[in-house]
């Protein structure tokens, strides 16, 4: 039995799971507030662009996006297996690529700010 390379995908999953546990609910809450008519100051165009203009914020945002998407992707992979989908390698390739691509896209968008 060889030691698995699972830690490569599991570490970002664990980090992302922890990050989303701390951060995602309040982010969704802020979004909801905006949707219900109380747009918080930070979500106005000028404020958000000002924030996202800083390189540190860009880095942080990409990290948040990547870790959140990766942990969701990993969980989705496991869930699909639990539900009987046997083609694990294909599923893994698909979900992790999607997470990676979306993260790259986020970085690209942020570089335009």
């Amino acid at each position, binding site marked *: *039995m*060889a*030691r*698995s*390379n*699972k*830690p*490569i995908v*599991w*570490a970002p999953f*664990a980090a992302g799971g922890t990050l989303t546990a701390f951060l995602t609910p309040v982010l969704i809450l802020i979004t909801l507030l905006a949707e219900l008519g109380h747009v918080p100051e930070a979500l106005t165009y000028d404020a958000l662009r000002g924030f996202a203009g800083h390189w540190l914020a860009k880095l942080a945002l990409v990290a948040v996006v990547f870790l959140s998407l990766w942990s969701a992707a990993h969980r989705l992979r*496991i869930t699909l*297996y*639990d539900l009987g989908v046997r083609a694990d390698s294909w599923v893994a390739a698909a979900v992790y690529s999607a997470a990676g691509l979306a993260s790259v896209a986020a970085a690209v968008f942020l570089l335009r700010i």
Partner: protein
Amino acid sequence: MGERLVELEVLRYHPETDKEPRFQRYSVSCREEWVVLDALNHIKEAIDPTLSYRWSCHMAVCGSCGMMIDGEPKLACKAFLRDYQSVIRVEPLAHFPIERDLVTVIDDFMAKLARVKPYLIPKDAKTVEEGEYRQTPAELKRFKQYTLCINCMLCYAACPEYGLIPKYIGPAAIALAHRYNQDSRDGGRDQRQEEIAATEGAWDCSFVGACSEVCPEHVDPAAAIQQVKIKSMVDWYTEHLMPWLKK
């Protein structure tokens, strides 16, 4: 204490004559304080001597009488009739092949236990003359709960991943490995990692937690498995990112 009429719906399977298992219903007059095992024993003694099942201590320490009772993995000697309705479904432990009636084939489990090297591999071997291995209460407490496993296999029956992935080494085996890894006298963690840090080791676990919920001895194998994952992850990154570090 009075009597109670209980219907036991028991899965039967005789390989000589049956193609498939089938249910057989027994009407048993039980004493109120009985456990399912008492009802089974009464069936075997007075109604149907052909019923086969494992049991021994009748006090939840030997781990022999694990079976599915109303769909839940339980020790038959610890399943009190008063906690159930008047019809109780009794089946062999899930995720194991059925040998005969309520008796399962447990070879896979036994092999997996052996694979994790469940014995002390001393860090600093001592001869008897050199005296005992000494251990503080704190060092004992570090692994004590993982020593409580009675090998009843309820955790394997509860674990959906074991059901889906037969190669998965399973909760009890990993908890057992962890028991030795956490023992201050032991130096064999590296050897055990070959088994429990493999894909079919801790990594097949998705932390459903059912194993710990059904464990009659409160071993908490789920906790052991997550701790193994974290240690294995730290090992992996140390090994790959800082290979110059000696283990």
